[in-house]
């Protein structure tokens, strides 16, 4: 039994999962410490209040509110769980987006821009094709595909710049993000999709349900009554499985991975690395755009179109989702849901305690920091092993060049 555990521990995958779990745990503990620190510095927060905050941080998703006596109650909360899954849907998609690009050695920080372009395309299609003449399910499908396509095009731009001109994709992505923010603002500003019916609100677009377009519930409303969840989460999970198959079972995935792990070797083998870089970014963009479509086509949220000063957090949060999942598409399902859970916890903190939701942002940032850090440790470990301790820092560069004596290093590893 012990040997089996040792074997399991020695597996690369197990270590990655462990590293992520440790990051999460430390993140939650730090969140709890922040809660206590804030509590101690504020007179208005009692010891009981601090304790409630800590409990919510670890188990907020199972909170059912406060009873008449003002004590936190716990149990199965279908609404929270359903809302968590609803919020997880776009995070899973953007997480997949970042993960796919990463497999090809690209850092897709452009997910927010792709997400925005996907938002614009899917909303415009869903609102402009009259469901009186075209069946609503077809409009939904067109809007979803349109969102994917817009994201794909937007992702392909930094991909092409990288592949053809050698421009760093991170720079190009940052530029295209803000381009997208301004294009989307302008496009809705001159459109007639602005919500004029509820005149208490300004800067919002109609919900897609205004045109009768809504993601099918696929039974999710029965499972989680009272929540916003719909079939989108099932689609996202299906997409994650498809991405997993694409990456691990197909020749295209093989090419993308080869390009990512060693572009020189891929070129040597005759793989068209330029095409693959563009393709990888297009797929990444399609996933982010599709995530936006799944979120807005739910029909129960409205889009604030005047977005030129901010980028959607769902896009950026794809990065920690992918990082925590070590870029494994199946792992992304779980880390996406986890991130959404922190969201819900934030809401619970705001609703039931004197704390606000921003504490969960602290937790998220600590986790992101640690997950990036654990990745670094994972990368450093074999090197430390190879070099034989910190003494080796003084080793002359000659020994790291690929000349005869260096082969030793490979043997040792």
């Amino acid at each position, binding site marked *: 039994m012990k040997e089996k555990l040792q074997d399991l521990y020695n597996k690369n995958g197990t270590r990655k999962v462990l590293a992520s779990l440790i990051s999460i745990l430390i993140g939650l503990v730090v969140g709890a410490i922040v809660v206590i620190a804030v509590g101690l510095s504020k007179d208005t927060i009692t010891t009981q209040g601090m304790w409630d905050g800590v409990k919510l941080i670890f188990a907020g998703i199972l909170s059912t509110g406060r009873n008449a006596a003002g004590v936190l109650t716990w149990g199965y909360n279908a609404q929270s769980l359903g809302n968590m899954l609803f919020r997880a849907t776009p995070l899973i998609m953007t997480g997949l987006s970042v993960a796919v690009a990463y497999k090809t050695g690209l850092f897709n920080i452009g997910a927010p821009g792709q997400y925005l372009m996907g938002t614009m395309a899917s909303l415009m299609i869903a609102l402009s094709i009259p469901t009186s003449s075209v069946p609503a399910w077809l409009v939904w499908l067109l809007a979803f595909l349109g969102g994917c396509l817009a994201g794909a095009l937007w992702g392909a731009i930094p991909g092409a710049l990288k592949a053809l001109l050698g421009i760093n994709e991170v720079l190009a992505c940052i530029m295209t993000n803000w381009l997208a923010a301004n294009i989307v603002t302008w496009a809705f500003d001159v459109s007639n999709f602005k919500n004029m019916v509820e005149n208490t609100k300004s800067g919002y677009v109609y919900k897609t349900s205004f045109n009768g377009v809504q993601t099918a519930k696929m039974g999710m409303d029965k499972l989680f009554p009272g929540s916003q969840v719909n079939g989108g989460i099932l689609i996202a999970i299906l997409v994650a499985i498809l991405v997993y198959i694409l990456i691990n079972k197909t020749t295209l995935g093989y090419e993308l991975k080869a390009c990512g792990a060693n572009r020189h070797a891929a070129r040597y083998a005759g793989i068209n690395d330029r095409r693959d870089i563009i393709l990888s970014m297009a797929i990444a963009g399609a996933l982010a755009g599709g995530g936006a479509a799944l979120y807005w086509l739910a029909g129960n949220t409205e889009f604030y179109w005047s977005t030129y000063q901010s980028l959607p957090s769902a896009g950026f949060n794809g990065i920690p989702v992918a990082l925590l999942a070590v870029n494994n598409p199946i792992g992304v399902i779980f880390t996406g849901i986890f991130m959404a859970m922190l969201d819900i916890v934030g809401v619970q903190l705001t609703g039931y305690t004197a704390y606000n939701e921003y504490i969960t942002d602290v937790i998220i940032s600590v986790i992101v920091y640690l997950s990036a850090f654990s990745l670094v440790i994972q990368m450093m470990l074999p090197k430390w092993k190879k070099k034989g301790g910190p003494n080796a820092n003084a080793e*002359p560069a000659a020994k790291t060049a*690929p000349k005869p004596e260096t082969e030793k290093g490979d043997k040792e590893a």
Partner: protein
Amino acid sequence: MDSEYIIEMLNIRKEFPGIVANDDITLQLKRGEIHALLGENGAGKSTLMSVLFGLYQPEKGVIKKNGEVVQIRDPNDATALHIGMVHQHFKLVDVFTVLDNIILGAEDTKCGFLQRKNARKKVQELSDKYHLAVDLDAKVEDISVGMQQRTEILKMLYRDNEILIFDEPTAVLTPQEIDELMDIMRGFAKEGKSILFITHKLNEIMAVSDRVTVLRKGRLVGTVNTKDTTKEALSAMMVGRPVQLEVHKGPAHPGKVILDVEHMTVPSKLHKNNAVKDVSFQVREGEIVCIAGIDGNGQTELIYGLSGLEKMSSGTITLDGKDLTKMSIHRRNLSGISHIPEDRHKHGLVLDDTLENNLVLQSYQDPRFQHMGFIRSSQVRDYALKIIDEYDVRSGQGPVTIARSMSGGNQQKAIIGREIDRGTPLLLAVQPTRGLDVGAIENVHAQLVAQRDAGKAVLLVSLELDEVMNLSDRILVMYEGEIVGELDPKKTTVQELGLYMSGAKRSGKGEA
């Protein structure tokens, strides 16, 4: 007490996680001798020298100088003990002059200003005394590799070192430069300086050294007097079994022309000139044609031009009657080029992927290995097992071993197996034995000869003169991007080859 030995390393043990790099090694260096340190890759030569130079601390053992125990904690301690080292890859600042490089770290200053005058005088004296011709005011980036090495040697002398370590000093030199270096080393020994000479070239050991210490797998095999031993005996000590030093091959039977290159010109990435200038040659089936030359004379770019990794600016390539000039790398691969690349880590392998995935790097689109775009993993596995078996590729976990964790020799075996198994009419082999030990080299040479005998055209690029002379049926010498001579290995000598390699001699024949 005046000891016979100037430096003694007694019972040195150095461990790295999972491996003992030096296990109870004793090396005694006499005053005024040239002592060769011989061993395969990974035998522990470099580790031992790093211990002497203060880069590593040994777990056990002591170092004595003149019979007294000394502590060498870092390279500064080593310098204080007058131990100097010429590294295999020179440690010079490219944009500094030769003089500045020599005094760097041992500068004479007055009120923070460099006092170059005295330094120049001292360096000039040393240069004259030991016939180390250098241009003190030239920038390092502009001078030849040989002069760079002389600069490194002057650096050691400037610091009054009396124990000189040379780490594979001949790898980058022409035969003539090697002879000069040997003379210089003999001169040092006569002066009473002691030399440690790390190498795996047996000819040089026999030519210049007084004694040889042989290491194998981190252990001391023994120390022998050079005049009492032979090349064969030394290689057997090094590998642990008798080794075939000469390549056994019958006469070549060249058939029709397989590869026909005409007027190939490839631009350089490093400088404005073309790296390959209007080169034309042919390779026939059933022969091994070797491109010889000193590193950096356009061999790499020539191969890149052939494989498609670099675009030619003019010229044509014809393979077996097909025009490859405009084809992509992928289509050239399919049209019949196999390529054992120069840099197996950069081009040959995806190091972080598994061995089995690496073995189908070019052929993953072959219907054998995919169906409708889905990889047939069981077929890939079977194929990997076949290659592993046929080419004796050894690895920790078989097909699922991560390529990075394999030894250099086995990585190379995997690449050679993959390329040969593709069964193409042309095989490009670029420095196929680089970094391999004697036993592995023997194996690679036998494979290449077998390919030739099977009627393949083999184009070999090698920097090793022994390999060039032993393995090839025809030699094309490249110098500054041009083919300056075509030689018959049976009729030429290493010296003549060296003259062509250094540009001192050329014939119009090869360019025809």
